[in-house]
């Protein structure tokens, strides 16, 4: 099966990379790529303890703050590998076109946003959650973008100006952070494969932080104009990148569009 072959290939590369040492040259101590962060639980040898309990805020809620990157299994298909999601004919045709053209029209190739939740699923480029009492900010390293999730009790806006990231409100249900987002601009891709949506899209995300080093997310997609039934993602896992910071990422030499077949 293709999956096993690809996984084996990736394991090979991972093992090759893992067998090499990580050395930070002297001046690196002045950089922020590797900087001890206060509040990081540590093992006796000083390394971040990713299995420690999740931190809590002063009002007793789990604190989702940290720099995270996604396990790559969900990049292509939010529903899970090999899962087919029933779509209305216009959406099915659009999805097929995106697959057939190998993602040639992906907005990111023109440095436009991924949207929700795809912007968190970018391979090898992390995001940062900053949790404050009245809002949770998601800072996306790729393209230096952000999303705000308001936790001050407000409702979703009526007839908002459509936005790539929509408008988000969040609240806690026990240890789960539940986010509702609507007011999407048409044309964002729900995942790397290009699951489409309409302006009726309403997304519910449920975040959990089972321990210091792990974040989990379940996504529910409700868009009756595109999908006859609401559908759910596979559970998405994120790993913490401890003791580091985001790097700036702005499109300064975007030229993918020039090289794409059919775009000359």
């Amino acid at each position, binding site marked *: 099966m293709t999956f096993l072959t690809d996984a084996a290939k990736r394991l090979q590369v991972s093992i090759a990379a893992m067998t090499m040492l990580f*050395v930070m040259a002297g001046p690196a101590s002045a950089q922020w790529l590797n900087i001890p962060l206060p509040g990081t639980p540590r093992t006796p040898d000083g390394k971040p303890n990713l299995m420690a309990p999740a931190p809590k805020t002063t009002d007793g809620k789990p604190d989702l703050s940290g720099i995270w990157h996604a396990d790559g299994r969900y990049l292509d298909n939010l529903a899970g590998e090999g899962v087919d999601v029933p779509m209305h004919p216009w959406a099915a045709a659009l999805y097929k076109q995106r697959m057939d053209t190998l*993602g040639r029209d992906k907005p990111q190739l023109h440095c436009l946003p*991924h949207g929700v939740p795809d912007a968190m699923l970018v391979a*090898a480029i992390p995001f940062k959650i900053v949790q404050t009492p009245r809002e949770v900010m998601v800072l996306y390293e790729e393209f230096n973008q952000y999303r705000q999730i308001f936790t001050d009790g407000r409702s979703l806006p009526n007839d908002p100006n459509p936005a790539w990231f929509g408008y988000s409100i969040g609240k806690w249900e026990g240890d789960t952070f539940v986010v509702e987002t609507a007011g999407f601009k048409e044309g964002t891709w729900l995942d*790397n494969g290009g699951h489409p949506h309409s302006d009726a899209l309403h997304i519910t995300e449920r975040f959990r932080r089972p321990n210091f080093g792990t974040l989990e997310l379940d996504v529910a997609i409700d868009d009756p104009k595109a999908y006859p039934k609401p559908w759910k993602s596979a559970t998405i896992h994120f790993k913490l990148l401890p003791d580091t910071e985001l790097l700036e990422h702005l*499109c300064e030499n975007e030229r993918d569009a020039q*090289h794409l*077949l059919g775009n000359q």
Partner: protein
Amino acid sequence: MKTRFAVIVAGLGLLLSAGPALAHHAFAAEYDAKKPIKLTGAVTKLEWLNPHTWFYIDVKDDNGKVTNWGFEMGSPNILLRAGWTRNSMKPGDVVTVEGSRAKDGSNNGNVKVVTLVSTGQRLFAGSSQEQQ
């Protein structure tokens, strides 16, 4: 100075995805994995810029004719986390590039690995093909 990129970071292994993925980049729409290339030449230019690092090398054929090739790597952000710095490879350095040729037939490619000829050190390029 050259020892700065003498080793590859284990963290790159963590960042590589575990499943089949096009990554954020439509690799297959631009490059042909069935057209592998391996070229050696001196670096003429390095663009240490987002969204993708680009560098150019002068490749001399058997007749002495020089062609300039352009190569794309991952974001500098990915390379930095993998142990590169913006000074790891400089104009004038002779390198061997392994990767995939551009589908449009231009003298461009996507990079898997760069080997610095003078020291033999190999640097993985953090490219989208690698993330597949």
